[in-house]
């Protein structure tokens, strides 16, 4: 069911199975029929771990969404709340429980906290007088959820905001816990590298937790050689730029959530002649996107400009394969053809889907505005005119383009100029406030606090130094058969991935100067292994590095790391973990002031 998780260098199905086992064990503790009341935010991530069938096998008969007042009627013995440890949710649960008690037969209540039990929440339940109503109060350590064969995410929406705006390290603690779980399954990671304040904290917590667990030392041969912890605020630039890989663009335009995307249905209407356009589907087309689909695995990380040729080549191969049937003469040949049919049909379906998606994307990317925006982004990233008011941005504001798009561009300019001149900054801010409303003053404050938007300190722009040393801008980019990670942004090489690349070869010592300019400390820690577990690398065997993005990662960055993994003489394969899969829009949105 999740075979694609085991294709990679590290078999992440092991993790999936481990968390599934834990879930089953919990469900079996509550004997008898059950209803689950969901914290709505959890349903998406849970879908990647356990489908409804698993829950059903363990006597889950009903599922509800957690909301106030009474629980819907259900003839079950157990009511289990699956919730994140948040006070506001405790209030709702208490309301549910209290209104439940007054009618009908008594039922058993349980709480499963995801990912961690919380004393604070239990105290709240106690204050509300319902703590005693729960028979089982347990935690489900679902920190890192396997998304793909080389990708793990905590899907913690607010992680960046909490860490950088609110100095709340809860998600860092969960990240450290998740890494401990990972090490329990895949062995101690001998070397930890990191850059950034949060990275430092996570490493500290890991070392501390390791001390706590010394008794249960696991004797597992380490699968990962290195861990690289990266703060998102070390590289604020990358997520702001528009991703230009296939997957990245799907995410930018339609948004991928928990590996699913919803697309406008028109393009997916079954092509039948004489249909006359009636019966067009109106419900969005929902597709799961992961490497289980062969074609998607091949094109997801390509620059979008290289996708078309692959699709047409595939189309030829498939129609040629279907043509084969005319050549099949003997019974044996026909039989062989028929045996391949299901696979071929699946391939054809997949091809049709992606051709439609590519067409949808192409409509956007060929638009003039997309081109203009990209031109401005690329100018900023290559260091052109970053210090003055940009007329394209002004025009966008004047025409009231979406605020997130505008903020993204202003922030990009600010980051590429190590902050804007006060006059320029104030101009942009005033324009935004006058056009979109003064209430966005708080959003601007948040962006400033996060360092995305700031006045230039001391009038010095350090971005050119960083750009040149790390070769962030490559003029000779090859989108079709790339030779460098910069293909994912058609010229810009993501800073974060460059750091990972340079760490593996030749090492960070070569870029000490730049590392000092970037915020936060950089460090290296070793976790000693018992002698029996020390690895002797075979010649030609690649290292495995786990790169953990604290505060989010984009699909383009993932694509760039996958590109590095596939390099023949790369020497390192990467597994990626993050607090949340983001793009510039969702990221900026997470920082915006939410109305109370």
């Amino acid at each position, binding site marked *: 069911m999740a075979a694609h998780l085991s294709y990679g260098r590290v078999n992440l199905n092991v993790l999936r199975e481990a968390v599934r086992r834990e879930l089953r064990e919990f469900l079996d503790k509550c004997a008898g029929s059950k209803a689950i009341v969901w914290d709505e935010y959890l349903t998406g991530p849970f879908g990647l771990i356990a489908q409804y069938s698993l829950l059903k096998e363990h006597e889950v008969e009903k599922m509800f969404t957690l909301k106030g007042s009474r629980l819907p009627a259900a003839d079950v013995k157990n009511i289990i709340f699956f919730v994140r440890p948040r006070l*506001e949710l405790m209030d709702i649960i208490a309301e549910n429980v209290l209104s439940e008690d007054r009618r009908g037969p008594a039922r058993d209540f349980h709480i499963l906290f995801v990912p961690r039990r919380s004393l604070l929440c239990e105290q709240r339940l106690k204050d509300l007088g319902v703590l005693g109503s729960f028979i089982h109060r347990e935690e489900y350590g679902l920190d890192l959820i396997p998304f793909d064969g080389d990708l793990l995410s905590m899907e913690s929406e607010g992680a960046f905001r909490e860490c950088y705006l*609110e100095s*709340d390290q809860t998600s860092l603690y969960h990240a450290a816990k998740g890494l401990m779980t990972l090490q329990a399954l895949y062995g101690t990671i001998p070397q930890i590298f990191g850059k950034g304040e949060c990275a430092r904290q996570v490493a500290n917590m890991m070392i501390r937790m390791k001390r706590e667990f010394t008794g249960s030392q696991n004797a597992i041969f380490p699968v990962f050689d290195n861990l690289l912890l990266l703060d998102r605020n070390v590289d604020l630039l990358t997520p702001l730029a528009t991703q230009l890989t296939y997957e990245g663009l799907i995410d930018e335009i339609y948004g991928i959530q928990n590996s699913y995307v919803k697309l406008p249905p028109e393009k997916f209407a079954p092509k039948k002649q004489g249909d006359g356009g009636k019966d067009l589907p109106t419900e969005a087309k929902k597709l799961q996107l992961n490497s289980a689909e062969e074609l998607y695995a091949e094109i997801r990380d390509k620059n979008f400009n290289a996708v078309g040729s692959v699709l047409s080549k595939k189309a030829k191969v498939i129609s040629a394969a279907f043509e084969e049937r005319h050549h099949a003469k003997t019974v044996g040949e026909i039989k062989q053809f028929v045996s391949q049919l299901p696979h071929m049909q699946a391939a054809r379906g997949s091809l049709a889907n992606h051709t439609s998606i590519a067409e949808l994307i192409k409509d956007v990317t060929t638009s003039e505005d997309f081109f203009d925006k990209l031109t401005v982004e690329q100018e900023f990233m290559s260091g052109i005119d970053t210090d003055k008011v940009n007329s394209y941005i002004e025009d966008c504001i004047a025409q009231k383009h979406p605020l997130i798009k505008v903020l993204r561009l202003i922030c990009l300019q600010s980051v590429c100029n190590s902050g804007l001149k006060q006059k320029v900054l104030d101009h942009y801010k005033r324009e935004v406030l*006058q056009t979109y409303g003064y209430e966005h003053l*708080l959003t601007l*404050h948040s962006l400033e606090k996060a360092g995305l938007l700031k006045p230039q300190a001391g009038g010095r722009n350090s971005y050119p130094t960083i750009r040149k040393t790390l070769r962030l801008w490559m003029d000779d980019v090859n989108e079709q058969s790339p030779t460098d990670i910069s293909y994912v942004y058609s010229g810009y090489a993501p800073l974060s991935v460059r750091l990972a690349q340079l760490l593996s070869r030749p090492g960070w010592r070569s870029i000490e100067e730049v590392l000092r300019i970037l915020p936060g400390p950089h460090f290296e820690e070793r976790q000693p292994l018992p002698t029996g577990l020390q690895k002797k690398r075979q010649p030609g065997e690649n290292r495995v590095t786990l790169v953990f993005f604290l505060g989010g990662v984009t699909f383009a960055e993932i694509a760039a790391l996958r590109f590095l993994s596939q390099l023949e003489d790369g020497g390192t394969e990467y597994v990626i973990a993050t607090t949340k899969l983001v793009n510039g829009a969702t990221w900026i949105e997470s920082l915006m002031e939410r109305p*109370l």
Partner: protein
Amino acid sequence: MDCYTANWNPLGESAFYRKYELYSMDWDLKEELRDYLVAAAPYGGPIALLRNPWQKEKAASIRPVLEIYSASGMPLASLLWKSGPVVSLGWSAEEELLCVQEDGVVLVYGLHGDFRRHFSMGNEVLQNRVLDARIFHTEFGSGVAILTGAHRFTLSANVGDLKLRRMPEVPGLQSAPSCWTILCQDRVAQILLAVGPDLYLLDHAACSAVTPPGLAPGVSSFLQMAVSFTYRHLALFTDTGCIWMGTASLKEKLCEFNCNIRAPPKQMVWCSRPRSKERAVVVAWERRLMVVGDAPESIQFVLDEDSYLVPELDGVRIFSRSTHEFLHEVPVASEEIFKIASMAPGALLLEAQKEYEAASFGKCFLDRFPPDSFVRMCQDLRVLNAIRDYHIGIPLTYSQYKQLTIQVLLDRLVLRRLYPLAIQICEYLRLPEVQGVSRILAHWACYKVQQKDVSDEDVARAINQKLGDTPGVSYSDIAARAYGCGRTELAIKLLEYEPRSGEQVPLLLKMKRSKLALSKAIESGDTDLVFTVLLHLKNELNRGDFFMTLRNQPMALSLYRQFCKHQELETLKDLYNQDDNHQELGSFHIRASYAEERIEGRVAALQTAADAFYKAKNEFAAKATEDQMRLLRLQRRLEEELGRQFLDLSLHDTVTTLILDGHNKRAEQLARDFRIPDKRLWWLKLTALADLEDWEELEKFSKSKKSPIGYLPFVEICMKQHNKYEAKKYASRVGPEQKVKALLLVGDVAQAADVAIERRNEAELSLVLSHCTGATDGATADKIQRARAQAQKK
């Protein structure tokens, strides 16, 4: 090798019993054993002796001595008995000594004579006094059964979880029963008692008369009864000198034996081995010991001294002032090896070894025989020998050892404070550290913290030196013990070594070291733990102190702020005020302004915000907030005058709405007041007028002065409204840079080509070319190609 079988005594056809010495006792008893109350714990456990002065005369003034010895007679403790008269002594399964007083109070002592606790067996017992008492063991723990002066029984099946049960009355019982015992059937403890020729079984509901099947007639009284170690069998000694043996359920008789002695025996106990078919009881009189089973003859021993029998799982221990012996059925394995003329493999191997020394190496040639069990057996034997040493004095047999398990044995060594031996055994048996060495070290440490004469520093250091980072050691458990002994400082020192903050913090809170708990919680990174301490502190300290504490802990402060943001907005404001954080205060008031329903309230909140921003030296935010106030007031006036909604529109949208409604003057005025930049104002007007499709006004506007945004937007917006006619008007006014684009937009390909050729711009040429479609533009396309060719020539 004859000596092996020299002490084997046959009982019937198939079984041998032997008695051998375990120890010659190390103790030096002043009196005969019969003068003491005696309690010996099973599994080679300790022996307690209490000289019994109450039997003879009621002399309360005499304070007897309670002595505790190991099974080898090594003294463990000795203390003066200062409490009331004791009726009975007994050991619990945890090797705690239970002393049942006449008044029904049970005092509990440790192995080293340390007083642990006491409990009472109830009022009824207190009133009627204790006549007799028994301590018994079941799978639930150790129980106490009491026979009171009123001939009633009170029972508790588990002294660890004291629930007293008063047993039903025996009808017509006038005197004490001649003998009684505790049975345990179907997990329920019952009492079997004998009154004259009758037997009664008491459970918690009823009293029923029972009859042992097949008992020889003529019995007028039962003198002694014994239940087996596992509660499966029962033996009765009658005044006819008959010993009846059967199942404890009294449903089946095993055998009966007449010993022809009518004197009441001092003790009678079962002596059988698990899984053996043989059943036997051992009966002791003053100077005689008899082993009786399902055989016509019995085995008889002479007792030289006063002796005491201790039933064990697989035999009977017999100790006196000078010796300690073990009597048991010879195990089958030994029998097979040593029985005369045995042909069992073991016997042959032994014979061979006697003849040829080489045979002792035979094991090496057995390649298909897995050595594990051999190795394990050797290890077990070594452990058993080590603990049997008279310094230690735990004489366990192999079966007892297996029944007890190594874990319990280690616990018992710990109880005797034999830490080094326990650790050696763990290391020798390679037990996992968490179950073995660590646990023992932790126990040692818990003992160590009770040594009040050693300073806190020294104890903490000693403990850390020995324990270090040994996995599985819980420093917090040790610290909790230290705290329990009233050594808070030591507990804090010990907690320093505890790596698990989840364990550290609650204990620190309990010890009222909340501030220390806070810094520990912060160190751990576990925000939930930090919250827990914070809420604790909030209740414990007054507000000022609480805020001061937060001030020194930035991480805790920001977490608390988060908490307040959702739970206590007012406190949040106080926190910002305390820190003079005017920037955040400003934001706070802005947020608050949105909660205000009335515009006056909003403006007032915004004014407070603006003031705060000024204090924060955030001029921009202050000005912006003042602008917002100004806009709000203005919008309200507009609403009053124009009768339509303006509130909550942005400035831009307000101006747009005014234009759309035809209030151009007001729009102009507003734009001036707020200094909307010209460029944006042009865009704004352009968009609004096009929306209105007011082409006339748009044209007028375009001619009002030179457009700061050029004329291409005019073309674009007209085309967007599908008005090519209007669009063309503006296309001609577009500057040369964008002219081609404009011409193409209005569909004038030919002119676009001309402009592009004139400008000699390659990119524009390609652009125009890409717009050339079909036959109509054929000429234009040719023209461009020619121009290109010409350009290349140059």
